[in-house]
């Protein structure tokens, strides 16, 4: 079996430059921008806070569970949750179910991170190493969860208050 790798996002290392968003958009949509990126990096200018958010490829994934047409399935090679464009009806159930806001629906199709088939562009452009593509051995799930906890709290600061 191939080694499973995941995107490790480090709040403390993120400088908020959004290179990842532009790079994601350029690779996936052939145009550089923020609106069509699979990642998002919400920010709060006054305290220079930036929180990288992308699909966590959850083990027990709400998006996969709620999808009425079973359009979301796991890629056995990369471990990424993929959207089957043929089956997706654009109902947005997955958008509501995702706790991280990591899925959008555009032109009737759910769009989310597919780990670039095992070679994610965002990690390549992130020089401060706020986004790393690591294997489970590189610190494992513990690291992943502590990072997630921190990022969710930071996200609450941005979304919730001033």
């Amino acid at each position, binding site marked *: 079996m191939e080694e499973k790798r995941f995107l490790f996002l480090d709040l403390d290392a993120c*400088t908020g*430059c959004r290179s990842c968003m532009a*790079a994601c958009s350029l690779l996936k949509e052939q145009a*550089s921008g*923020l609106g069509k990126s699979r990642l998002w990096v919400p920010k709060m200018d006054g305290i*220079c806070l930036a929180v990288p958010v992308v699909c966590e490829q959850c083990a027990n994934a709400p998006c996969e569970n709620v999808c009425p047409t079973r359009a979301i399935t796991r890629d056995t090679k990369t471990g990424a949750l993929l959207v089957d464009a043929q089956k997706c009806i654009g109902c947005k159930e997955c958008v509501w179910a995702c706790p991280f806001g990591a899925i959008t629906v555009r032109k009737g199709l759910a769009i989310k991170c597919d780990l670039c088939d095992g070679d994610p562009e965002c990690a390549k452009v992130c*020089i401060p190493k706020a986004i790393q593509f690591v294997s489970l051995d590189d610190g494992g799930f513990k690291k992943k969860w502590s990072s997630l906890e921190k990022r969710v709290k930071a996200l609450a600061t941005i979304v919730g208050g*001033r």
Partner: protein
Amino acid sequence: MLGWAGKILHVDLAKKTIWTEELDKRLGERFLGARGINAKLLWDLIKEPGIDPLGPKNILIFGCGTLTGTTAPSSGRTTITCKGPATNLYLKSNMGGHWGAELKFAGYDHVVLHDVAENPVYIWIQDENVEIENASDLWGLDVRETTEVLQKDLGDKEIKIACIGQGGENLVRFAAVMNSVYHAAGRGGAGAVMGSKKVKAIAVRGTKDVELWDPDGFRKLALKVRKNLAKDSGAQSLYDYGTSGSLEFVNNLHALPNRNFKYGHLKDPTPLTGQNLVNEEYLLRRVGCFSCTISCHRFVQAKRGPYAGTFTGGPEYENFAALGAQSWLLDTDAIIKANELCNIYGLDAISTGTVLAWAMESFERGVLTKKSMDGIELKFGDADTMIKAIELIAFRKGKLGNLLAEGVKRAAEKVGKDSYKWAICNSKGLEQSNVETRSAKAYALAFAVNPRGPDHLHTETFAEFGASPEAIDLIKKLTGSKKWASPYFTEYRPEIVRWHEDCYAVTDSLGFCAFTSTAAYAVNPENMAELFHLATGIPMNEEKIMLAGRRIITIEKCFNVREGADRRFDDLPWRLMSEPAASGPAKGMMNSKKELNSMLNKYYQLHEWDAKTSWPYKETLEKLDLKDVAEQILKLPNKKKK
């Protein structure tokens, strides 16, 4: 349009009209973007010399780079151009942050503000929807408050705000335009021009993408260039310790100007260094502008003393030097406070530090007195009075505030008594940035010919220090030998300046940061030309893009020619031209008139400009495809036939 967004947004503030103009591809080919196109627009829109920079006829132009909004590394910068209130001459001022990229995503390359509004307004740009909105409630707020109130009222934290603080409202001649709270277009007083137009802010939200001619080719090359830049030792140090990470190195060369340029060396510069920010845990976060690989910007919090708890963006090298070294204030926490006040009031920290140091020396010499200045006396090293004085300047309060808000040239003229001798500005009238030009000769030349005044932000000739292998290679390429990679030589400085001028103009115009190409040398003109080509589809090579750089430099010069500024304006502050460096390896060195003149002669010759007036020959302009410009300057000299 490919590469560019393809639209110039015009706002007439008096008539309250808004219109867009298609960006002419030919204009883009000749002037690239941002700084270049801004310069051409300013030339075309201000048709006559002598207008009041703070009056209705001035034009304020914002422009983002050709590559801004793309994955090209560190390409998110914005240029602001107008006639400058500090100098009454050409002004371009440049800022990082994320505002420029947002403007591009909204579908515009440039925003041009005409005339003045009757009452305070802000401009709200949401893709095609552009409104001039009432800003009476915002007038009087600082930069932080303005940003937060607008984001809240408009209901989206993603809205990018470029705005002025009280400094700009009160027409302080060195008021900055700020974006994302901490990113300043500081130099030369663009904030005062915005204030004179009664524009408090430009709020932008864009949802479009930048379309590229060859997306895949662009992506691959941009990634390669990004990796190169990441490997550069200068870029790494900027990430680790920020711009002030080099302060100790500069001090070791006895080239850290302090006590109003009287000395070049501090016994212990530690409190002013980026290393100190890290080691003493002032640093909370490293911050990047749009698409930046370097992330030199800092977010810090003061920890000790009366200013503990103050948080702010910065301080940069220049802020530590201007607000710290020049005032002999060696207190990290107090400097963080002073830095924060400059940020939120929207003041250029360089000019603020310079006027304060000038005032301190003036008090010391008895030229300014406590009695004549409402009972206030500024002393070197007195943090509390200095911090109070920054507020007086921003609000133009009292005699001292009003005097210093005019900038050091006008203040010295008003006070008289030889105080011009310690006023650190040149004949153009802008305060010099904190570079010891007496022992860095290419910097000296570049500062003297800079159309906006003496600083490192039109041309940074960092290579002359030979501080990296890339820098030494470049010096060899430009002069024929690596032995000229030392700042103490005057030989070959004009050649070094000429290359850096063109390269810097291209850098600014594409939206790149100077740290990519003229302070680090990881991104070279060939890379820039190729990325430009892949983005726009317009064939481009190194030679052609550097020629565009020279065209931009020349039209900027022409603005000043039209205003009547001749060779006499290309000089340096009196102190640096007349008093030798105090200590260190360059002890005794000076920017004497004689030395400067010999470099200037060669520099004008390389440009094919007339040595007597410093003005371009008609033929020079025609050769640069600037015939339209040549036709508008009647008194241009003709090239003498050999």
